[in-house]
């Protein structure tokens, strides 16, 4: 490893935070319908809202059609499971590289379905974006995690590589 201690900590913190974000988004969708602790029903989650409401940019038509397609239930399920698996992977540092690829795929899709081309503040968003939005930034952060192979710094991947290493040694001797 060539990174300094601080660099390592920064990378693992970033991975854990991104992982938590995915994990919670997946968990939230999994438990719905649910109620907030203040007593407000949160209803059942479906990607249809995002696909219909937020979708914008050049591919909006395609995603609008997805929202009305009979596969919507399966899309919902895949997104939910995808978020949970990616979240677990990044938080635990298990199959980290695959988790990073999954994260980038999901974020890429979220980005493509709603590319901010207008530059105006969108309904439901807390700011105004032009081309670059938080999905893209998070994807770029995951790209950095992917490039630095954070699984070899901390996480369950270490156990896997160690076991492989031990086995390789045994074979070598």
């Amino acid at each position, binding site marked *: 490893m060539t990174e300094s201690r601080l660099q390592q900590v920064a990378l693992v913190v970033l991975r854990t935070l991104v992982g938590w974000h995915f994990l919670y988004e997946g968990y*939230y969708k999994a438990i719905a319908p649910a109620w907030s*602790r203040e*007593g407000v*029903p949160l*209803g059942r989650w479906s990607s249809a809202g995002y696909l219909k409401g937020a979708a914008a940019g050049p591919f909006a038509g395609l995603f609008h059609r997805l929202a009305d397609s009979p596969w919507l239930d399966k899309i919902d399920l895949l997104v939910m499971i995808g978020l949970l698996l990616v979240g677990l992977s990044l938080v635990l540092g298990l199959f980290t590289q695959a988790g990073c690829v999954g994260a980038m795929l999901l974020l890429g899709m979220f980005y493509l379905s709603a590319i901010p081309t207008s530059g105006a503040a969108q309904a439901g968003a807390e700011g105004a974006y032009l081309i670059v939005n938080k999905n893209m930034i998070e994807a770029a952060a995951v790209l950095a995690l992917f490039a630095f192979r954070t699984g070899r710094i901390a996480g369950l991947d270490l156990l896997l590589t160690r076991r492989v290493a031990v086995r390789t040694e045994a074979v070598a001797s």
Partner: protein
Amino acid sequence: MNLTPEEQELGRRNFLKAVATTPALAALGAAAAARGPVRGGPVRVGYIGLGGQGRVLLGETEPAFAQVRALCDVNPSRLKKADDVMAKVGAPPAKHYDDWKAMLQKEDLEAVVIALPLWMHAEVAAGCMEAGKHVLCEKMMAWDPEGCRRMLETAKKTGRLLEIGYQRNYNPIYQAAYDGIIKQGVLGDVFHARLLWHRNGPWRRKEDPPSPDFDPSRWGYPTFDHLINWRLYWKYSQGLLAELASHQVNVANWFFGATPAAVLGSGGVYRWTNEAREVPDHVYVVFEYPQGRTAVFTSIESNAYDHYYEAYFGTKGSLILRGETEAYLFSEGDEKKATSLEVSAKGAGPVTEASESRVADAAGRAASGSRNQGVDRLLAYRSEVSEFCAAVRVGKPLRCGPEKAMGSALACIAANQAMEKKSRITIA
């Protein structure tokens, strides 16, 4: 309480100013504890009793909070009307029952809303709780103290939620009045409250039986009139005290932080003597609270001029809560207000004739006009049902609950006894 438009405007402004200074910290406190959502969809509910009040609650039941799966009433025409209410709300139709026990057996319910004649409250509410259902039961709690105690004990024993339908607890005006004025001591020492509910009519419902061969005796009502006009007969009802006073006494208990220690009463059937009715049409009751505080309740069925309000008179100010929609605050020494009180106490005409809202009331329109504070009294019912569902799902505290409801019920039942004997009764 007859106020000129100018006085109403002043009172409204005073009220809003006073309640605006109370910070809404509750929301911040709740947010401080980071806790995720709780799994679960709308609460699965059955309605028992779909007369006027049951249908009001049904109409204010939001589908996101509660899924109404079953409706139960002995009168099929009431069920049909309830179907219409649900269609209006946009809720899918619910199954019909005429027997609440059958409904509990066949339906997978978590909670029931009970809006039956008073005499049935204790039996049905206790039975539902014993069957594991949470209960939102209309006021008054029960017909007699034994019934109240049975309901309270069953709630404790079964660990089920029991809320009694005093919608003022869920009315933002009353909440603001308590938090911003009563609790802050804005009124000074309050020795007297005036609770008043005046109407002009026989209180009799007119309705045809659902079919010529409809036999209500199966359910304990010798004639159809006994079923429809149960409020007028002692066997089923505790009269005006239960149906009207108990609302206002419930608030007085809340605002005074106490329950009456004794009650004096007078009243009788004075006007509707030719009607088939047993409960008084005029009641005058004095509720004695600890520390020299007194609430006087009057309800008459011969004049609707004053309609209904609660007034709290303190050493520093007066608070008037009118028609569940409006609130006025006046400080002592405010000359305008002193004039108005004097005038209304004497019942003088000219001032009130000049008041537009008075005319509106007399014309039978809801007390909420364009000049009010914008509170729809039905919203309180909506909050009541929604918050009850939230209590079932995430344990949101009930705003009234059986203990408080019992305080009001015992006082009103004792008031009827005092009235019957025209004497003073100590409340145990």
